[in-house]
């Protein structure tokens, strides 16, 4: 059913690939500036304390030290992610609230000196009792982490759609289950790095490994008290982000302050341990769900409570607290849903957004509970799901509109590919198969700060010499491949080969873009790119229509050649009249059709600079209730997965042997990249399901702040993954495209948990599913507890 596309839907090599395989690609820490200083941070060694005294004199006296900053000589400005919860200062004022809370920063001639100076800063602490357990945080006698959050409650959500109490008695079957997780880490390969420099006009340029240059620009301007136009934020190549790099950080702010204090470029980089301390990754969730179905297996209601441990500051936490509930509204018809969540603060590193944001753990419990209900009803889990899936055009009880939804197609695809029907279930001890589904926003419907700003703008400029076009976007290329997606959309729209398009991205000077989060870039920046490309195409064709005295509707570019009603038109006459230029060298012989190079040169000669612009802002979305904005999106991606596992019943070791995944991305812009996103989602979720846990000591220190003890999947842990791309042609997406970057994570954890249950009959209520937890669940099962 696909349109005859020339570029999109293919498998083009990514634009940044050649530089990345040869070592030419430059990441922030690869950059060096003349006269550059090195920054380092002093972070709290204690989880909760009053700061009695800070003495920086020894550090300042160390030769080679150029600046020492603390709260005393830095802006007293509160910042954060959500304007409603600005609760951080660059450096701790009066109190430190977690091991890693930033107290001071040093700039010195080299990194060694900066680190030595940090050690020379004397801080006297009056230790306070620390809150290290999210459940304990709510107890009445618990110490308070912030005065601003009485009872340690940072965000509280109460939502009710339909009428759960009225639906409850009508249920044929009701189940209550719980599931909890541990704090997890983004574990991207590139530790955060920031390089700040001020030019002769007093303008700050911050180069940073960020996912969201725009929000960082705003925060730097606010905290440093500079006009926004005096702050430029650039992300060069970025070594993965997955959410934790989506907000401004103290590393970035402190580095800017050091550059301003010294007048010299300053670069600061995190160690791997600091990546763990800074965290801003997956929260710890405690979910309890009660779900009811009728005798035919139709979902009647969901009653859902969540407790979310957020660590010491708010970060993205309000959104997390809402997402944990709102992302259960689909992809099944669920008429009644009640959701209560509390996001507490504790004296632990700060949690933020991570791939799938607040929805991942909630989805894991929801999908495992569906399986238990299916079992009780004597129904096949896929049959139960197919009975309940929504279709395109339907709206959830919390007002999320599924303008396209290939959920049924995804389920049927994984059922057929995995050989689900032929698999005997619960027969071979230790071997199991499980299924799960999920959906996710294709870009948050609203910006993080309240504004009617476009979510992105894109500028496309045609080379004056003709032939090439440059796409200029503020979108952040963090490895997900957005530069290639934008180039493909521009090439397809104009009608030129991909090779003619280059992309500059991740620079607040180029255009506005909210950034790489909420799986938004393909749909949103894609729209703006398409619009800018249409603008460029229109300008060039208009010039040609005039020159050729042909109606513009009869002209188009195809693979870089001008087609006039399918033919070449009077190309030779145009060449003679308009393009006779003495450039001093021969232009390669052109064929009968005018090339895009000739046509765009002609347009430039006629009209001057050819610059096209585009923008995108979603329409007003969602309901009128409190928190209705969170979960809204112009479109939703969805996916289904089947996992096969082998569980060693003696040791509790779980091995995932196969994953069959289907994802509805609307329209693949680049099939290879869609598959790559699906694979990445699965591997991150597999790690979270089976191995990833940030472990804390009694004093609030992280016991495993490294990649040896915080284990992420290696090539030996990953099973063969079979991917199926479903294309439902999203009406609100550019060329019908929507997200794949985050939604693909949703089904993996519950599919694995359901497979473990199938293999062992053991129900896991806490993960990661370590061998110990498997054995404990098996023991519970045997004892009938």
């Amino acid at each position: 059913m696909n349109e005859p596309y020339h570029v999109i839907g293919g498998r083009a090599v990514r634009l940044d690939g050649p530089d990345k395989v040869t070592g030419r690609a430059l990441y922030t820490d690869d950059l060096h500036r003349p006269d550059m200083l090195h920054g380092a941070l002093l972070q709290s060694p204690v989880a909760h304390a009053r700061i009695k005294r800070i003495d920086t004199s020894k550090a300042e006296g160390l030769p080679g030290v150029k600046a020492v900053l603390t709260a005393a000589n830095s802006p007293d400005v509160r910042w954060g992610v959500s304007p409603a919860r600005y609760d951080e200062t660059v450096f701790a004022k009066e109190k430190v609230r977690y091991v890693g809370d930033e107290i001071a920063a040093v700039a010195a001639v080299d990194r060694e000196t900066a680190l030595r100076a940090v050690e020379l800063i004397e801080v006297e602490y009056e230790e306070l009792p620390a809150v290290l357990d999210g459940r304990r945080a709510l107890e009445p006698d618990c110490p308070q982490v912030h005065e601003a959050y009485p009872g340690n409650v940072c965000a509280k959500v109460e939502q009710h759609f339909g009428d759960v109490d009225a639906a409850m008695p009508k249920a044929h079957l009701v189940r209550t289950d719980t599931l909890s997780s541990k704090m997890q880490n983004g574990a991207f390969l590139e530790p955060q790095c920031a390089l700040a420099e001020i030019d002769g006009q007093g303008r700050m340029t911050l180069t940073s490994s960020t996912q969201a240059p725009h929000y960082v620009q705003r925060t730097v301007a606010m905290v440093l008290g500079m006009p926004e136009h005096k702050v430029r934020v650039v992300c060069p190549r970025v070594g993965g982000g997955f959410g934790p790099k989506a907000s401004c950080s103290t590393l970035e702010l402190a580095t800017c302050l050091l550059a301003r204090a010294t007048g010299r470029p300053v670069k600061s980089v995190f160690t791997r341990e600091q990546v763990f301390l800074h965290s801003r990754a997956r929260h710890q969730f405690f979910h309890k769900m009660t779900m009811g179905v009728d005798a035919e297996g139709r979902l009647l209601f969901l009653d859902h409570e969540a407790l979310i441990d957020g660590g010491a500051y708010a970060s993205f936490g309000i959104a997390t607290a809402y997402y944990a509930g709102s992302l259960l509204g689909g992809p099944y018809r669920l008429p009644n849903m009640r959701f209560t969540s509390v996001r507490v603060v504790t004296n632990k590193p700060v949690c933020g957004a991570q791939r799938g944001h607040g929805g991942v753990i909630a989805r894991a419990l929801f999908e495992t509970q569906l399986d238990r209900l299916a079992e009780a009803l004597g129904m096949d889990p896929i049959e139960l799901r197919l009975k309940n899936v929504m279709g395109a055009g339907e709206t959830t009880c919390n007002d999320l509109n599924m303008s396209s939804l290939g959920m049924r197609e995804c389920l049927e695809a994984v059922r057929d590919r995995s050989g689900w029907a032929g698999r005997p279930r619960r027969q071979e001890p230790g071997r199991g198969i499980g299924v799960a589904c999920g959906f996710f926003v294709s870009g948050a419907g609203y910006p993080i700060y309240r504004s009617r700003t476009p979510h992105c703008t894109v500028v496309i400029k045609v080379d004056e010499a003709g032939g090439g076009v440059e796409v200029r976007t503020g979108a952040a290329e963090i490895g997900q491949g957005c530069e290639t997606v934008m180039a493909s959309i521009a090439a397809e729209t104009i009608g030129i080969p991909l090779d003619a398009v280059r992309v500059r991205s991740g620079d607040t000077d180029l255009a506005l873009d909210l950034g790489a989060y909420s799986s938004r870039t393909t749909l949103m920046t894609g729209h703006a790119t398409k619009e800018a490309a249409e603008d460029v195409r229109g300008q060039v064709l208009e010039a040609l229509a005039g020159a050729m005295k042909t109606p513009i509707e009869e002209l188009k570019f195809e693979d870089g050649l001008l087609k006039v009603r399918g033919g070449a038109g009077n190309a030779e006459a145009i060449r003679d009249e308009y393009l006779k230029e003495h450039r001093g060298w021969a232009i390669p012989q052109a064929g009968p059709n005018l090339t895009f190079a000739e046509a765009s040169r002609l347009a430039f000669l006629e009209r001057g600079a050819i610059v096209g612009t585009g923008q995108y802002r979603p329409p007003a979305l969602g309901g009128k209730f409190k928190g209705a904005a969170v979960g809204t999106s112009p479109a939703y991606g969805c996916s289904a997965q089947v996992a096969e596992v082998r569980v060693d019943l003696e040791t509790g070791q779980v091995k995932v042997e196969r994953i069959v995944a289907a994802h509805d991305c609307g329209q693949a812009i680049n099939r290879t990249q869609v598959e790559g996103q699906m694979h990445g989602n699965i591997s991150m979720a597999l790690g979270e399901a089976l191995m990833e846990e940030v472990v804390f000591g009694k004093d609030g220190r992280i016991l495993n702040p490294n990649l040896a003890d915080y284990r992420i999947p290696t090539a030996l842990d990953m099973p063969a993954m079979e991917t199926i791309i479903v294309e439902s042609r999203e009406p609100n997406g550019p060329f019908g495209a929507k997200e794949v970057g985050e939604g693909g994570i949703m089904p993996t954890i519950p599919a694995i948990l359901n497979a473990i249950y199938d293999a062992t009959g053991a129900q896991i209520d806490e993960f990661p599913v370590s061998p110990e937890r498997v054995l404990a669940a098996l023991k519970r099962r045997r004892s009938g507890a």
Partner: protein
Amino acid sequence: MKRLLGLTVNGLPREVAVDPNRTLLEMLREDLGLTGAKQGCGEGDCGACVVLLDGVPVNSCLVLALEAEGREVTTIEGVAEWPSLHPVQQAFLDAGAVQCGFCTPGMILVAKAMLEAEAAPTEQSVRRGISGNLCRCTGYQKIVEAILLAAERMQSLEGARR
């Protein structure tokens, strides 16, 4: 007190004055400006800093620069023969094995060494071979496919040469 280090880097003889505690990774990145090798952890856990020392992959964050005295170092910058890419590099592009790219230099060097030792590896031996290199983006699938594709191409090249 700095000491003079003599070694071969990507086929060229180099002399560098380094502190005895300087790592090979720091020397390559900061003294020679070869920033293709990355520091992902500094503890030998992630493999982003892998270079070849006399053809053998090492985590250059755990090797002292002075240990490379008189030896041959190959970094990602020295793998391609302009204007062609090395078959492993080309296969990484063709198979879509690159996303953020931070693990890519280490992965390619490990794969190059692997294929020089074992021309026709199985999928499992490829997975074992890269198990010391972490990647958070790809789930390794397309990396494994790329290495197998490179092996196939290198073998048929070899076959054509005979």
